[in-house]
């Protein structure tokens, strides 16, 4: 897949416009081919040159011709994205990811940093690519800044700040990975948001080499602000009026309740599966022991023993998958939904209400749509894992049928 070279460039994004259609730039977060694609990406002077929209020779790196007249034609590119078929035809020009956790041991403290990678064509960014290291504190700071500066919008939640020392190992692979995924999700949600993604603090978070310097500057500014800022950050998330927001509040209450129930059920299933696994682990070897007593039956019994062993492995994989992939995503959604629920405040300023409500409504719709996609994916994933488990077991049992039916040599 060729990219970047040969005079194919990308159009310059117009300032203060929304997302632009992607042209010849391959999707940097595409699953398998991302390595080759990414390596081809070099910031070139061509990137800044305006492009003729009348040029009909445009085609995507994978050879699919692009209809320049309609933004919806970038949908084939979107199919390579993780969140496919969403955003109602919106296109993306900002991609972020969180990975590569590293432990830092200093005299005062030990902490983890994560690599935050950004790839973008937006004019708001000086470069098309950034790679910075951030720690949890920095994410927390970002979230607070967003809440302050965008009080009319729903800000995605962060994973838990405090962990009980001694109970949870803050540096265990499992904990770090769970946190990394949550931080990744947090940034992606902001990057997808048509308003939040253009927030100045967000930009700095993604790009600044020295975030701390910027933070100090920001703190100074904040102390100069008066009552109005504090007033705005009073936590206007969901209002008691109009009626539809009350309905949303009710919905969220029930929704979170149901998710909680599903979480408990899933945990229970995993527990039962593990107990089943314990018994299976004793069961298989008994066939083997029996085989040791027998002559003609030795091989068939060994075969059954091995088969049960394979089923054990498959079951272990299933419950691991559920624990590592299903439960965390579910829980994160519970947190996310919880974060949107706030005791309704009495509005103090009538004229702001309309603006607030419109933004919230838009955000709620986005949220609902994303929720539908996310759960569709999550539940289909759960079904898939179970299907795979049964397929593995099926293969194991089918393969020993010929062994069992094998006729011994006549004496």
């Amino acid at each position, binding site marked *: 897949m060729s990219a970047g070279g040969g005079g194919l460039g990308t159009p310059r994004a117009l300032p203060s416009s929304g997302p632009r259609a992607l042209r010849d730039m391959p999707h940097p977060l595409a699953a398998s081919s991302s390595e080759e694609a990414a390596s081809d990406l070099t910031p070139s002077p061509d990137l800044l040159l305006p492009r003729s929209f009348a040029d009909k020779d445009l085609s995507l790196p994978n050879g699919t011709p692009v209809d320049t007249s309609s933004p919806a034609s970038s949908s084939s590119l979107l199919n390579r994205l993780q969140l496919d078929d969403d955003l109602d035809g919106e296109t993306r020009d900002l991609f972020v990811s969180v990975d590569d956790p590293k432990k830092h041991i200093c005299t005062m403290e030990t902490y983890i940093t994560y690599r935050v990678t950004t790839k973008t064509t937006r004019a708001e960014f000086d470069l098309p690519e950034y790679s910075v290291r951030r720690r949890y504190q920095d994410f927390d700071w970002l979230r607070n800044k967003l809440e302050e500066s965008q009080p009319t919008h729903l800000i995605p939640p962060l994973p838990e700040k405090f962990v009980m020392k001694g109970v949870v190992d803050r540096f265990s692979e499992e904990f770090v990975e769970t946190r990394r995924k949550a931080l990744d999700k947090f940034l992606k949600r902001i990057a997808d948001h048509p308003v939040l993604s253009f927030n100045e603090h967000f930009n700095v978070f993604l790009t600044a080499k020295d975030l701390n310097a910027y933070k100090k500057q920001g703190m100074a500014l904040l102390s100069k602000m008066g009552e109005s800022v504090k007033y705005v950050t009073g936590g206007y998330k969901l209002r008691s009026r109009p009626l539809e927001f009350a309905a949303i509040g009710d*919905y969220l209450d*029930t*929704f979170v309740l*149901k998710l909680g*129930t*599903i979480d408990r*059920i899933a945990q*229970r*299933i995993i527990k*039962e*599966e593990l*107990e*089943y696994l*314990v*018994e*299976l682990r*004793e*069961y298989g070897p*008994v*066939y083997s*022991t*029996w085989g040791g*007593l*027998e002559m*003609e*039956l030795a091989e*068939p*019994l060994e075969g*059954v023993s091995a*088969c049960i062993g394979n089923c054990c492995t498959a079951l272990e994989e299933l419950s691991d998958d559920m624990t590592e992939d299903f439960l965390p995503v579910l829980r994160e959604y519970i947190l996310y939904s919880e974060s949107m629920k706030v005791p309704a405040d009495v509005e103090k300023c009538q004229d702001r209400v309309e603006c607030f409500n419109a933004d919230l409504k838009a955000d709620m719709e986005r949220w609902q749509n994303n929720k*539908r996609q996310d*759960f*569709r994916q999550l*539940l*289909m994933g759960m*079904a*898939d894992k*179970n*299907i795979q*488990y*049964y*397929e593995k*077991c*099926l293969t194991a*049992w*089918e393969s*020993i*049928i010929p062994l*069992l*039916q094998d006729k011994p040599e006549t004496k």
Partner: protein
Amino acid sequence: MHISFSNNFCDPCNFSSKMMEDCLSKKIEITVSEAEKRTGRNAMNMQETYTAYLIETRAVESQTEGQCSPPDSLWRRYSEFELLRNYLLVNYPHIVVPPLPEKRAEFVWHKLSADNMDPDFVERRRIGLENFLIRVASHPIICQDKIFYSFLTQEGGWKEMVNETGFQLKADSRLKALNATFRVKNPDKRFTELKHYSDELQSVISHLLRVRARVADRLYGVYKVHGNYGRVFSEWSAIEKEMGDGLQSAGHHMDVYAGSIDDILEEEEHYADQLKEYLFYAEALRAVCRKHELMQYDLEIAAQDLASKKQQCEELATGTLRTFSLKGMTSKLFGQETPEQREGKIKVLEEQIHEGEEQLKSKNVESREFVKSAWTDIERFKEQKNHDLKEALISYAVMQISMCKKGIQVWTNAKECFSKM
């Protein structure tokens, strides 16, 4: 559901084909078709509840001719089956006598009842009893037994007939003392090994059945908990617009999934019953080895006895006292016996020796014949066991395959519902 076991494998190697042809099972079809609860009075005139089983027999020829003549039938209860089997055990000690299904439900997993009156238990016992009768009828030797035949055909007075054979008196009570050891100097090595094998087999199948019951318990739990998804998806769908239908129908599939485990585990009980049969067969096998041990022991005791009598005789005849005896001492103290007395003694001993030699000869013959015929039946049993257990393992694998396919089906259906969310 009526399942009858097919005619069992009779190894032609050591039995003539004529004997196979003569097997009762080839001539009549035997079924235990019904079970009925009865109340009656027991030996102590107390009221009791028991289950009676209907045994139906039908001549094979009448069916092939296209006639559908009604079968002969009679009712028997479990204790009568036990009586029959004990009779066979005593009269055919060289045969590995087919076992009865268990008296009380053992190796149950929690959902199954351990109650003998439970319909599922009764049903499985019915099948087990039918299997027992077919096994006996398929055995070339015991199928010819008259008592067995009357058991199948003569309702009244059968018990009295059996007791009149006096088989209980013939029974060697020592056979019941399973763990008593008899110091046998020259056992047939094959029997020693076989006894060891039967002990190991009993142990391993017991272990297998215990763990299998626990596995069934756990699997039941896994499936049933999924039923909770059905309920919560239904509740959740009520507050959703677009997602509602998909969730609701997926929830239905979760209910189906949870419900499917009952049939799956019921089928697996048949597999457990097949294993149990061989658990009990191991006991029958052990009994034959035990019998050999006792015969050998008796033989050796008789030989010892004979040897010591001969020695006594020799001592008396030659006047030398090689062994210490109280008589010898007392005669020393109180005076020697008269020559006439000694003569008398020698004569008695010589008679006893003669008798002993005859007995020993016949015991030897008996023992050799026992070894020969027992080993023949053991070989027959080995073939049968290998065949049957292989079939059992195959049917178990088939059950697992079916369970996997059902699982794939249900989750695929659910996945489709989720995709429509």
